[in-house]
């Protein structure tokens, strides 16, 4: 242990910075700095740029599948710099979730067919796990797939599918053996959302955006070659995926650092009476507390990145612990961002259409006000998605103490 950042890492950070300066289009960065979630076009466009310029579109994948071969610390630096520069979040369901599953469990055919379009930013994936009756209790899912010749026939419904209405491809969990124990009869399928029988209905959420959806499957035929791994073994692949989602992405700590940077910047120019808000002792005290929490999270994330998850550094609990505290901080920091704009906090700013640039909008208040409230509402969900805060605590208590 020495806590000295490696010079390689610092050099790498400079390299990423200059790449972003050169290649991140300013309209993407402007929309990214606002709080609205990026839409499909922005996400894919950025992936295309990363892929074409440097082959950086899926850093965490194995090298032979198109990954970068970066060390974990470099991946983290990359993500952090992208966030700070306002780069759009790529299609996580594709790059972070189904991609690694295909890399690890897919056959050669599937890798050849599905991975390159993800790398090239050509397809947008959506995640179909949750159902109306199967949220926290995911294993209770009821959507069925029945083998019929060389197809599965899928019937049922998914809900809370992020970016559902924009999805080209959908990976989903289906029940293939209704007689087996809940976890035993589940399979992992890949489905083209344009297949007949798929209906997608948007759900408007509190942030005013329609990025969630319900997906209905009515006798949808999926070719058997779109099954990942073996039939009825889907739960195992899912655990792998959820573990990735939690341990590596759960705290979303680069986003936390971006919030802190924004808070400092905005609170220095927003005034309360005769002084900038940042000079207000109550405000500054609260910010100090939040910043310390984030610094602690960040340090632990770096440790995990260097060591990998093992029994000595928290084992199965660490990802959940980081997610619980991280998501609480997302909520506190986005609330603070809205507080900073004072009288403009209550204003509803409709989300800008994609392709819109900063000069085409007119609104009251400071130019960074739009998007902050949308982000605050969106972040109410971060103690719900990817496993609720209560479920994470159950996991922690069980993993650490056998309770």
């Amino acid at each position, binding site marked *: 242990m020495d806590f000295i950042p490696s010079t390689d890492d610092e050099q790498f950070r400079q390299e990423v910075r200059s790449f972003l300066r050169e290649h991140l289009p300013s309209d993407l960065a402007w929309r990214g700095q606002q709080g609205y979630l990026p839409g499909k076009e922005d996400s894919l466009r950025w992936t295309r740029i990363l892929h074409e310029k440097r082959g950086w579109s899926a850093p965490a994948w194995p090298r032979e599948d198109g990954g970068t071969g970066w060390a974990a610390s470099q991946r983290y630096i990359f993500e952090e710099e992208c966030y700070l520069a306002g780069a759009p979040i790529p299609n996580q369901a594709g790059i972070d979730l189904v991609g690694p599953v295909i890399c690890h469990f897919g056959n050669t055919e599937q890798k050849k067919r599905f991975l390159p379009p993800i790398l090239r930013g050509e397809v947008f994936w959506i995640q179909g796990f*949750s159902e109306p009756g199967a949220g*926290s209790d995911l294993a209770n899912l009821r959507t069925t797939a029945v083998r019929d010749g060389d197809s599965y026939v899928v019937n049922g419904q998914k809900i809370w599918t992020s970016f559902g209405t924009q999805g080209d491809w959908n990976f989903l969990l289906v029940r293939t053996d209704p007689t087996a124990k809940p976890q035993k009869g589940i399979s992992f399928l890949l489905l083209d959302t344009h297949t007949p029988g798929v209906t997608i209905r948007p759900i408007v*959420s509190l942030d005013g955006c329609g990025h969630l959806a319900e997906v209905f499957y009515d006798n949808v035929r999926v070719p058997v070659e779109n099954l990942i791994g073996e039939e009825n073994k889907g739960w195992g692949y899912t655990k792998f995926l959820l573990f990735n989602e939690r341990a590596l992405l759960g705290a979303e700590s680069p986003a936390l650092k971006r919030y802190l940077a924004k808070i400092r910047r905005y609170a220095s120019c927003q005034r309360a009476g005769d002084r900038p808000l940042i000079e207000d002792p*109550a405000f500054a005290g609260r910010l100090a507390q939040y910043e310390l929490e984030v610094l602690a999270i960040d340090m632990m994330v770096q440790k995990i990145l260097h060591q990998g998850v093992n029994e000595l550094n928290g084992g199965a609990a660490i990802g959940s612990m980081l997610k619980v505290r991280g998501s609480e901080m997302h909520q506190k920091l986005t609330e603070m961002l809205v507080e900073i704009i004072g*009288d*403009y906090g209550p*204003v509803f700013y409709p989300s800008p259409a994609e392709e819109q640039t900063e000069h085409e909008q007119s609104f009251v208040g400071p130019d960074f006000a739009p998007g902050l409230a949308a982000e605050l509402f969106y972040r109410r969900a971060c103690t719900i998605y990817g496993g609720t805060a209560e479920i994470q605590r159950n996991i922690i208590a069980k993993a650490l103490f056998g309770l």
Partner: protein
Amino acid sequence: MNFDLTEEQRMLQDSVRRYVNKSYSFESRTQLVKVGGGFSRETWSVFAEMGWLMAPIPESCGGLGFNAIETALIAEELGRGLVLEPYTFCAVLPVAIMRGCSAEAQKEKLLAGMGSGETIVAVAHSEPEARGCVSHVSTMATRQADGRYALNGRKSLVVAAPVADRILVVARSSGQVRDEQGISIFLIDPQSSGVRCEPFRLLDGTPAAELVLENVVVSASALLGEEGNAFSGLQRAVDEAIVSLCAEMVGGMEDVIALCSEYLKTRQQFGVAIGTFQALQHRMADMAIELMQARAMLYRGLAVLTNPAAEDTSRIVSGCKALVSKCAKFVTAQGIQLHGGYGITEEYRVGHHYRRLVLADAWFGNLDYHLNRYAGRIQDEARALAA
């Protein structure tokens, strides 16, 4: 101290609750936001018919002459029902300003119109850098040679301005930006030349606007009461509005808790109702404790507002807002959490209470501001003791 409602108070409370249950369904509210601009004049007239708009108006001006307790009863029920029409901003606040700042002769006509629901009055008090400080007024009122006044400045977050027939504008006729002396209030017609209304919606769909005043010339009769002496009346009016807002939050918290209690009994996961999980039982218990605290603090606010001998009323009201909004933040956020995905949808009622809380926290200064103001009271008392 009597904590029981009188027969009359109970009837008032029932009348609002019945109206909201019967005529202000969540679906009609959603429609109101989608196609009705977030405000219904018809509903406002119903408020008038029911006497709720008359409630805070003095009997001498044809009103019911009720005090803050009765208006809080009304506000609480409206908050429970997520009612959009801004009772606090267009009834409690402007009436209190008229009561506290204007001369007798001015009151009668305007208050009659407000009580009947015909005249909707919005209040332009805040400015971007005020952040809750009532004396922060940089909008200028300059007296011209002909005795008229010219108004110049920018007023932020004027709730209901786009639908208002008249607007009470707080401006400075003398002194420095945060001086208490030198504040004057003018009644203006939003159609007057020089008034630019930049309209927008609030997060819950309520119409509001920023007002830009560029040489808005008004006659001397537009001035309420005496020039430069409006501060204490205005502060008192804001205090009344804050307590009314606290009552709305308490009503909202009650609704959230009722919704959760129901949901926990019906939603099944892992083969059982989620209410069987102790983690959630304890959460509900904590929410009930927060509500208890908030209601008790609301009572403190009402007690100080209705006690003519009370001192330092305003800073106690600040304490009231700080605690109630802290409690409401917890309860409304947990309301979403306990509903899982459903909690964050537009289609489901519970999340809208959290949205209201975001508004309530920002209005009249946020939690930091009011806690700090209450801290000032403690410091003053400690200094007095030390001296």
